Every structure is written in structure tokens, then in C-alpha cells.
């Protein structure tokens, strides 16, 4: 069947291959900006440098935090508004803008090559856009996670301060006999307060440190895309050819042999042998 319809069956493969490869070439070139962030436990806890990071490596915690943030519109909006795409985003409607934020979120890849290292990659159609988004992302991440820690520590300080004040007032109104037992509670509250102020100081210090700034975006290699396009084209064309062949076979009611003629009640008296395509009408002149 294939050799009979070789042109019609080969054509889909060739066309799909060419179209697939062409489309792969037509895909706009992408750029990726990389950044590396150093993460360690906050003081006064022991550093994890030189260890595997224990049960909860700092890099994993930071990567999870960033991934969570990338899932929020508020964070993405802040990132975009601090990037070169801010003007473009502000012109968009709510639905279009939301889609845009999602696409920005999806363009970010977060990896943890080691217990203290977070690798962040941002893809973009334009090199400056990719760099701009990556810079904005890092700044926003640093700001948000510090802000979260500080707010939490401040809340802790306020709480322990209130406890301490309450303990101090109680002590003043107590009789001598009760003072001794209350002193212990006051000391405990004072310790808690002191600890929370230390925690606040630690929170105010940066929890992450940027090692590699995303100051350059490199073009993404297209070999894989082209290979996929070409392979997809070949596969699609082959599938199309196969389907076409099945259709042709299903619709083919042509006679192929003398037995079929006899089967149909026709008198078969022989056949002209195949004497070869284009040379069908040729032979050496002495043959006649």
C-alpha cells in the first residue's frame, strides 16, 4: 500500500516535519536571568554552614517561602510593579492582568542546589525584562520575608512586655510573703522579654544574602525545542500517514490478482508483466 501511494503517504511526514521544525524555529527566543541566594539560620541559633542543614535546611525553608509567595497575587503584583513591566501591567484590565501575573509566576524557577543555597531563574521574552523581574523578585522577597520576621518578633516583644508590666504591677501590690514567689514569675517574664528583643534584633538582620545578582540574562538554547518540533512533526506526520493508509486500505476495492477476476466470474486470459515504470513503452528496437 505504501509503495502504491508513496507520494500521498510520504507527503504528510515531510510536510509535518517541515512545519514542526519551522514552528520550533519561529518560537520567540527566551532569555533567562539567574540569581543565587545564601540562606542560613538566624542568630542566635547555630549556623548550619558546613553541615547538611539538619531536618530543615535553611535553603529549603527559603525556597518554600518564595514558592508560597509566588502563589499570591499580592506578591506577584509587587514584583511586577517594581519591574520594567510595570507600565504594561497597569494598562491591562483585571482579567488580563491576572493572567499576566500568573505567567510571571510561572516564569520563575526556584531550586535548592545545597542546604544553604537557593537558585532562582526567571525566563522572559526579552533579556532586560528577565533581569528586571529577577531583580524586583529578589528585592521583594528579601523585603517581605524580613518584614514578616520583624512583625512577628515585634508582636512577641509587645506580648512579653505586657506580661512583664503586669508582673511588675502585681509585685508592688503584694505583701512581703507573696513577693518571694512572685519574684520568680517576674524574673521569668523578664527573661522572656529579653529573649524576644534579641529575636527582634535577629529578625531585623537580613535572613538571606544575595550572592549572585541577576544582572545579565542569557538566551535559552533552542536545540531542544527544535529537536522536539522536528520529532513531533515526524511523529505527527507518520501518524497522519498511517491513518491515511488505513483509510486508503479500507476504501481500496481494486483488483490485484487474476484469482480475484476468476472469483468475480470473469474470464482471465493472462496479464501484462510489469516492465518498469517510465520505461514501460520502451524496448530495444529489434524486439519488434
Amino acid at each position, binding site marked *: 500500500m505504501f509503495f502504491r501511494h508513496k507520494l500521498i503517504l510520504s507527503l504528510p511526514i515531510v510536510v509535518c516535519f517541515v512545519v514542526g521544525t519551522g514552528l520550533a524555529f519561529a518560537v520567540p527566543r527566551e532569555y533567562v536571568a539567574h540569581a543565587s541566594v545564601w540562606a542560613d539560620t538566624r542568630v542566635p541559633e547555630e549556623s548550619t554552614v558546613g553541615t547538611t542543614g539538619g531536618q530543615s535546611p535553611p535553603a529549603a525553608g527559603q525556597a518554600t517561602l518564595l514558592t508560597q509567595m509566588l502563589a499570591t497575587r499580592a506578591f506577584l503584583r509587587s514584583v511586577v510593579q517594581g519591574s520594567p513591566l510595570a507600565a504594561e501591567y497597569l494598562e491591562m484590565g483585571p482579567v488580563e492582568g491576572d493572567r499576566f501575573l500568573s505567567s510571571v509566576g510561572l516564569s520563575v524557577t526556584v531550586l535548592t542546589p545545597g542546604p544553604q543555597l537557593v537558585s532562582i531563574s526567571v525566563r522572559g521574552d526579552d533579556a532586560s525584562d528577565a533581569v528586571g523581574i529577577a531583580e524586583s523578585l529578589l528585592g521583594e522577597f528579601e523585603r517581605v520575608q524580613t518584614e514578616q520576621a520583624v512583625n512577628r518578633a515585634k508582636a512577641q516583644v509587645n506580648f512579653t512586655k505586657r506580661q512583664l508590666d503586669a508582673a511588675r504591677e502585681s509585685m508592688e501590690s503584694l505583701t512581703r510573703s507573696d513577693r518571694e514567689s512572685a519574684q520568680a514569675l517576674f524574673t521569668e517574664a523578664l527573661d522572656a522579654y529579653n529573649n524576644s528583643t534579641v529575636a527582634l534584633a535577629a529578625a531585623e538582620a537580613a535572613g538571606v544574602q544575595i550572592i549572585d545578582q541577576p544582572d545579565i540574562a542569557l538566551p535559552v538554547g533552542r536545540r531542544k525545542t527544535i529537536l522536539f518540533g522536528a520529532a513531533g512533526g515526524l511523529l505527527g506526520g507518520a501518524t497522519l500517514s498511517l491513518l491515511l493508509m488505513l483509510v486508503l486500505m479500507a476504501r481500496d476495492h481494486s483488483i490485484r*490478482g487474476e484469482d480475484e477476476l476468476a472469483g468475480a466470474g*470473469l474470464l482471465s486470459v493472462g496479464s*501484462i508483466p510489469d516492465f518498469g515504470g517510465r520505461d*514501460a513503452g*520502451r524496448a530495444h*528496437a529489434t524486439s519488434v
Partner: protein
Amino acid sequence: MSGEAAGADQFAQTWVNGTLGQRLSLAFGPGEHLRVPDQLVSGCTAILRRLRAELPEFRSVGVVSALPGEGRSTLAAGLATAWATAEGQPTALLDLSDSNPASGDPTQPTGATPGSGDPLQQLDWVLPGLALLRTRSWLPPGTTVTRGSVSQLLGALEARRLAAVADLPAMPPYGSADQLAEAFDVVVLVVRAGSTPLDAVTMAADALPGRPAVVLNRTRSAVPRWLTHGADR
């Protein structure tokens, strides 16, 4: 060059220049000769033997097909050549495939006077024992080939002890082979293997007089079907 070879070349050239050859030569380009290969001649010799086993005495064979482009001309040329050369029976190869001579043909056979009326005068002896006769050379301009005129022609050839192999048109709706076929002793229906639907063949066989002998053409055509289709229309 031997006399036979020169005659063969002349046959090929004349064949190409005719209506039938002109159509076939489309595949080979202008100026190239249509030739009859050994395999075709040997295949046709076997077909003639088989026909003779079915009908011992026959003097005329009409080659028809259900559809255009089945290989009528190839088979007719092969049968005539085989009959004339392998079996030594003087044979006339008739090109009756063009049923409308008035349509005009820019190439006329060498030495032929169109419409002179006597077909035997128009026989073009291209090989010893093999003559070629085209429709245009014995019918007056504007006259179509009818069963009566074909019967007359066959009678005249019979009187000269010439066998006849005719390349007839395709079956309706492409041609009027069903009418002309009645004039022949044997009708051969040529079928292209792997191409012609069985329904078309049985329908054509039913429309023909008697029981046609069927020949399977396994040769791949160098002439696209759409081209021969157009030529027959």
C-alpha cells in the same frame, strides 16, 4: 542497421506520431519513440495462446477498458506485434480509440491520405507482417467511427487475410467501446492491477457483448490517469 531494425524504428516513429502514440508519448516527451518491449510481446503471445484455447478461430481482437488509462494501447500494440512477429500472422493494428476524427490531429501519418475511403490503401506497413491503420486515415473528415464502418473495415481486412487488433475507446461514459466491440470476434477487457475497482470491471463486462476476456495489466503507467482521462473525454 538491419532491415528489421529499421522497420521497427519506423514502426515506433509512426506509432508515436499517430493519435494513440501521441497520447502515450506524453509520458516520454516529444521526439521519443514508443517501443514495444520483449516482455510485452512474450506476455501477449501467451495471451493469444490462451485466447485460442477459448476460441480456436478468431481473426479480430478489440481491446477495451472500463476506465481510461488502463493500458489499452499498450496491450493492443503488444497483441498486434506478437501476432505478427511471434506467430507470423499478418496483422493490422487499428487505432480506433479516437472516436471523433473531426476533432483534428496536427500530426498525420506519413504517406497517408485522410478520408480517401479505401482503408486498405491507407495501411502503413511498419514491419513485415504488421500494418498500422489510424481512424483519421480512412474516414472522411467529420465522420465518427460506427459499428457498421468497423465491420466493413474488418471485412476488408479479412478479405486480405489480415488479422486485426483494435485499440478501442474506453467504456461509457468515457467512450463508446460497447458499440464498437460488437464487431470483433474477441473482446479483451484490460484492467490495471491495483487500481481499477472490481465494480467498474464487472459493470463493463456486463455491458459488453458476450463474455469478454480480461487481461490484468501489471505495468505501472507513466501517463497520469487524469491526463489519459482528459484525452479520452
